[in-house]
């Protein structure tokens, strides 16, 4: 069965989803889904270990040889993403038991878990596939399920946010499809490796350039690259807490991964950064996103919204690393994908606890909440510090690598900028901490019920993530080794 792990990775949640429909009982479904998520995580870890120990794993679906059939490729990059996605899914599941039950009607709960598994399967499928069109299919599975998951928020704004996301997401996917179509017109193939080979002599073609543009913009929409991020804040703000946790930790990262895959494995480094000014473009987009969204985040009144804008800003860091066009920069980006997944899902987990007990994520409702929910807020602080990039937290490691990469590249102003924008993060995270710790509970709007500490089933996942933030801040050798290898693999693949 070990040889089938790549496909089981995706198929397991995929099959589990319809089984959930048949099971129907919410608790039963939850239990089943949790087991599936944990198993999926276990598989991804095994895959990662296998990949780190040797060559990339290829799995031909239907046993058809690669350019004709669809092939799964697990290398260090995709294995890392798989671990992130399935790990966060697994951690969020226990959390969902109470959180989802409080935000979603009981008779829809089993459908919710079904959707969750589908979304997981879709994201995993994107991360593992070696076929450009198969990527589109799984992109759509994950997108459709995330639209639905987001729309389950109890505020009516969730519906509108989901609809906007649906429109933007579909446009993004369709633009991607156009790009792939143009590449297909040019080369007649869909397999990424084959595309790279056959595209190599055609890099000067305008079609290549147009396809490149469409794919970058299309995936840029999905990953909320700066001017294309408009769907994200609303979507993350109004969705149910668990969904925010899961999507914030994984969705944009998987899309970014897809973009990296295409950029490095299909077009190749030479095309991206020598023929095309991608460095400059990404740098501009990244910096603009970083600065503007950080500033906007400072003025939000809703914690989830603060975090959502911060997510867009953080994507700027990831793109900045890519913009350096060096292995070090890429490694920094990948590290930040990993670390940001940890810290942002941790933050959303903590907010989920707050929402469960106070019914709101408005700042005004959280005055002095730290006294009633000390553990939750402590986790929030840990993850918040990680977001800022305070040493001994995971976020610091990625900042460290980013700054090193910037300096190594000689882009001093960017190094300064990375550091300066961390300070903006200080401000918006600190606003929350200040309200929660240093304002009296009497500042809350009248009629707010008293809160108590979140239940263990939610605290434990939150603290697992918070502890992971510290652990990977203290001992980052494992992620550093994996990302170093992954970055080398990506850079090498393009020649």
């Amino acid at each position, binding site marked *: 069965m070990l040889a089938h792990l790549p496909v089981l990775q995706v198929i397991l949640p995929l099959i589990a989803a319809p089984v959930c429909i048949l099971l129907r009982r919410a608790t039963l479904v939850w239990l089943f889904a949790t087991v599936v998520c944990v198993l999926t995580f276990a598989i991804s870890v095994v895959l990662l270990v296998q990949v780190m120990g040797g060559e990339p794993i290829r799995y031909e679906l239907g046993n058809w040889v690669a350019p004709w059939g669809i092939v799964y490729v697990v290398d260090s990059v995709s294995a890392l993403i798989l671990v992130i996605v399935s790990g966060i899914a697994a951690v969020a599941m226990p959390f969902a038991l109470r959180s989802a039950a409080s935000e979603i*009607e009981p008779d829809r709960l089993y459908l919710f878990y079904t959707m969750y598994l589908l979304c997981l399967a879709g994201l995993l499928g994107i991360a593992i596939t070696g076929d450009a069109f198969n990527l589109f299919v799984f992109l759509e599975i994950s997108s459709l399920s995330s639209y639905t998951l987001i729309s389950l928020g109890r505020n009516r704004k969730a519906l509108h946010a989901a609809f906007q996301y649906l429109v933007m997401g579909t446009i993004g996917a369709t633009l991607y499809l156009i790009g792939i179509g143009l590449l297909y017109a040019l080369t*007649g193939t869909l397999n990424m490796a084959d595309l790279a080979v056959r595209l190599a002599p*055609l890099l000067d073609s305008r079609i290549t350039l*147009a396809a490149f543009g469409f794919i970058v913009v299309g995936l840029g929409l999905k990953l909320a690259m700066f001017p294309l991020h408009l769907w994200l804040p609303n979507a993350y703000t109004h969705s*149910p807490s668990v969904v925010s946790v899961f999507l914030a930790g994984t969705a944009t990262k998987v899309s970014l991964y897809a973009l990296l895959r295409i950029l490095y494995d299909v077009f190749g480094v030479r095309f991206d950064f020598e023929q095309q000014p991608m460095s400059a473009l990404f740098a501009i987009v990244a910096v603009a996103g970083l600065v503007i969204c950080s500033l906007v985040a400072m003025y939000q009144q809703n914690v989830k919204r603060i975090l959502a804008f911060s997510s867009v800003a953080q994507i700027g860091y990831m793109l900045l690393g890519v913009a350096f066009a060096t292995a070090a920069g890429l490694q920094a980006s990948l590290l930040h994908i990993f670390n940001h997944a940890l810290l942002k899902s941790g933050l959303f987990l903590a907010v989920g606890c707050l929402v469960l007990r106070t019914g*709101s994520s408005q700042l005004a409702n959280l005055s002095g909440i730290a006294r009633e929910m000390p553990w939750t807020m402590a986790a929030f602080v840990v993850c918040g510090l990680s977001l800022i990039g305070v040493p001994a937290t995971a976020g610091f490691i990625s900042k460290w690598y980013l700054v090193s990469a910037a300096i190594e590249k000689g882009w001093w102003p960017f190094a300064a900028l990375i550091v300066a924008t961390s300070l903006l993060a200080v401000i918006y995270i600190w606003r929350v901490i200040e309200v929660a710790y240093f304002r009296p509970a009497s500042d809350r709007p009248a009629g707010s019920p008293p809160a108590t500490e979140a239940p263990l089933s939610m605290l434990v996942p939150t603290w697992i993530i918070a502890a992971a933030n510290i652990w990977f801040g203290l001992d980052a050798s494992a992620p550093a080794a994996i990302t170093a290898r992954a970055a080398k693999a990506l850079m090498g693949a393009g020649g």
Partner: protein
Amino acid sequence: MEGILNIILLGGMAVTAIAIAKMRNLFVVTMLSGIYSLLSAGIFVLLDAVDVAFTEAAVGAGITTVLFLSTLILVGREAKPRQFRMQAILPFLLVLAVGAGLIFASLDPNMPRFGDPNSPANQRLAPEFLADSVPQVGNEAPTRVGIPNIVTTTLASYRGYDTLGEVVVIFTAGIAVLILLGAARRRREDEELEGPETGAKPEPPKEDSRMADASKEAPGS
């Protein structure tokens, strides 16, 4: 003959699309999009994509129209007129950018001409599919599926995994609609929660917090 039909039908599609853009009555728009679907299905037939035409007819003209009608009953038929705003410039520019990108690509000499049998797309993988002789891993001789309809073969076997994905997509859509609208009784939480701030209802506290009141401790006690 085919070329002429192709031109007429495609022209018809363009005209229909523009008309849809201008219409405000949603019912009419739905009807026109039905025509649009029929036209595109016609083109698919012309371009030898019978399976696609089959699907487009069934889905585009059939199911989608019925769905739109069902929706219109619930949301009303008339779209409100829009006065011109400066913001309307931005989408227009975006649209122009997308169009320009495609025109830019299309003018490349590498862009395969209509029906060109030697285009890369028709030379790379298609021959093996059409000859029904695609190699399998570890097999010396290519495996034959032996079904005449190559589209079915490709769909279900060579790229069977895509189709599994497709089934899952439609499954997802079904579940999604169930979640969104499949209520046994009418729910009112949307209406209830129209206030300025909403969210989940907090659970009532189960027990008094041990650390609830650290601030009131008396010093020196």
